[in-house]
């Protein structure tokens, strides 16, 4: 039991972060507006969760110019993928223990 709790990642305690990671894992990369619409969030709320995940190096931010506008896209890093998978496995174990 101790082990499972250890694998539950504090960084994924917020549902928004779970959502961000889920979307980025299946789609390879997504831009800010796509994420915002899928998760039904405000700009500020999404931005704060994104920067938290970025600080942990779970996601990679890429800014580029499309014409005169900047377009920001996000990707999951291999560390992020590993941590998310471990978190998923821990969640699954918690359920089977019940």
């Amino acid at each position, binding site marked *: 039991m101790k082990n499972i709790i250890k694998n539950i990642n504090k960084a994924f*305690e917020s*549902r928004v972060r779970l959502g961000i990671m889920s979307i980025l894992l*299946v789609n390879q990369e997504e831009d800010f507006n*796509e994420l915002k619409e*899928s998760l039904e969030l405000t700009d500020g709320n999404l931005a704060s969760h994104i920067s938290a995940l970025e600080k942990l190096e779970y996601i990679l931010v890429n800014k580029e110019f499309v014409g005169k506008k900047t377009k920001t896209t996000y990707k999951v890093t291999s560390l992020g993928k590993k941590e998310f998978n471990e978190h998923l496995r*821990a*969640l699954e174990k*918690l359920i089977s223990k019940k």
Partner: protein
Amino acid sequence: MNNTTTENDPLKDLVYIKEMMEKSSRVISLSGLSGVFAGIFAIAGAVVAQIYLTSIGRNYQDFANNMTVDILNYNAIIFLITDASIVALLSVGCGVYFTYRQSQKKGLKIWDNTSKRLLVNLFIPLAAGGIFCLILFYYNLFVLVAPCTLLFYGFACFNAGKYTHDEVRYLGISEIALGLLGALYLGYGYAIWIIGFGLLHILYGLLMYFKYERGK
């Protein structure tokens, strides 16, 4: 639903993760009714083609018996291509309409990255198939047109199925199998085409309708 904390319920978390993965990567609004109508239009179009062929003293079997002989004149080819195009247009129109309706019901956007990916993956094999069939007409290889439309449509559905309900993928596999059968038994092309574009569409359409739409 509280959207910011996970309330420490691992089951809810997993359900949420699955939901977000599906919602962001698949067009879940694709309506089964579009399949049902596509099937009905296909059967109607096939009946019209049959009546026309009879009226000019031909039947489908002639294509199999005289493979490369010029047995259809220019007007007949134009009639058949127009017939097929009307069926395709009506089917796509209905597909867009019912899917739009479904996305409104679910409060989802119809035009996003997912639907773009779906259409690109559908239309590349489909466009290749359409051009290939025109080439078959050009060489008077009429008998191969029916199995080829099934094959290419099967490739298109199999490919696009990744971005929508899994049933579309199974529909693709069924169409590919029927296309191969039709190529082997050339004389049965007409019947196999009606099964593939008519009955299978209606069947899978109803399946999707009852699974994802009715009462939801």
